[in-house]
């Protein structure tokens, strides 16, 4: 039983095919990084997998109980406090009022948010804190699958590293599976079990590479060496840094 299976998924936008024949499977407890050049349809694929967009062809099978999603933009409700934002996901998940405050406190501890941060509005928080809140909102509903849609692209290097460590630790501790969309190979190499490469024009998955060792147990040196080797020698990653602005993301 897989956590997520995409079977020949295809999509077209205004008559233009942007995804075709995508087959991808994510095993329980596994994090799969989906990489590809910008504009190849990675985000669209994540939205189809999460059920936000209906695929034009193919089918999506979900073997998990509950998913959460973390976007590039934190997408916080500006009128709600940090606690209110975490609470929003819990309310939608149908968690009873009595257990919600305990779950909010637990999620806040997981992402290292202080109790006084919980009473602040998003405008009073820094970019990193906002993304922390978005992660807490996702973790609070206790998902067994998380979709990551380039969540850390807008963060600076040090902050991105901390967020990645946070994701690695929580996913390993909770046996959470995930689909991690990114265009940063070293990010993929740090936190995924497996890296899948999407074709430049969305015409299927070009191939996959299994990474040695579990995420969080790889040294920086090993990650760096893997990325260098992939970019220099592996034909699979030849077009990873191609950019075509005319394509729609």
């Amino acid at each position, binding site marked *: 039983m897989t956590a997520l299976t995409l079977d020949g998924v295809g999509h077209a936008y205004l008559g233009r095919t942007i995804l075709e024949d995508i087959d991808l499977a994510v095993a329980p407890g596994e994090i799969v990084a989906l990489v590809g050049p910008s504009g190849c349809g990675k985000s669209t694929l994540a939205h189809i997998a999460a059920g936000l967009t209906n695929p034009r062809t193919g089918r999506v099978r979900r073997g998990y109980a509950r998913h959460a*999603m973390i976007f590039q933009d934190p997408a916080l409700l500006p009128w709600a406090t940090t606690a209110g934002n975490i609470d929003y996901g819990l309310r939608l998940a149908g968690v009873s009022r009595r257990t919600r405050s305990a779950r909010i406190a637990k999620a806040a501890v997981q992402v290292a948010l202080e109790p006084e941060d919980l009473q602040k509005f998003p405008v009073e928080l820094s970019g990193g804190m906002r993304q922390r809140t978005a992660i807490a909102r996702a973790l609070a509903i206790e998902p067994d699958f998380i979709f990551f849609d380039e969540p850390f692209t807008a963060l600076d290097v040090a902050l991105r590293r901390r967020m990645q460590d946070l994701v690695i630790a929580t996913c390993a501790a909770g046996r959470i599976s995930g689909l991690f969309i990114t265009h940063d190979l070293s990010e993929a190499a740090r936190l995924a079990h497996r890296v899948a490469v999407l074709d430049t024009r969305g015409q299927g998955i070009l191939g996959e590479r299994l990474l040695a060792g579990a995420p969080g147990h790889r040294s920086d040196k090993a990650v760096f060496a893997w990325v260098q080797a992939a970019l220099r020698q592996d034909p699979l990653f030849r077009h990873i840094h191609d950019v075509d602005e005319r394509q729609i993301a």
Partner: protein
Amino acid sequence: MPSATRRSLLHRLAERAGRVLAFLWSGWAGLAALCLLAAAWQAGHEAYGPFILTSPLDTVAAVAALASDPEAWAIGALTLQRAITGFVLVAAAGTALGVMAGYSPATLRLTGPLITVLMGVPPIAWIVLAMIWFGGSDATVRTVILISALPVVFMGAARGITTRDRGLDRMAEAFGAGPVQRFLTIGLRQSTTTLFPALALALGTAFKVAVMAELLANAGGIGGALADARINLDIAQALAWVTVSVALLISVEYTLVHPAKAEVDRWRRAAQPWGVKR
């Protein structure tokens, strides 16, 4: 009750009380502005004499005389009731129509020209029509309020929905919110940004139009009292009624619109620099 919950409840109550006090304290600025207006008024009175412009003090005396007259209270209450019911009507209709149009771009494109036409017709023309249809009754006043304030509320609601942050909609959908839940928790809440200023404008229009319609349709109320003052050339009486209608508008705005707006816009205040807050 666990102590943490009790503490947070106390904290919230204290915070709310603090906000009310800060709001009352901001009244000093309003008082200063009113005193400036009174000074300019007094200067006008001294330049043109009491027959053209009664002094502020005489007007206050006339208002005081009205305040001790139960009949005047009935007149004021009649206009207040008409303005408020008209406002509630236009708020409900305008918000409902605007929200629908906001979600349907085709409807918005169709209604755009209609709104322009509606705005182009002078309110006085509607008063004449409403008088023919309903005579000098409450319905005349309410109809004129509805028609003259509808475009503003409609556009406010429609713009709020069309300019909403679609990223939030997508987020809510990813967390399992259905269309109705998304509308109630995301769409409606975001539309308040443009809807609230539109409603405040509509409330002002409701009072102005109510008095005007009453005067022209001879339908009693403050408008009717103003018509009497004009016949008697009683400037003090006319100014007293103007003062009363302005006072009514201000009291409604500060007991209804402002508290609601302050509650909804709490997060905006949090973003303001200190000098703007106080």
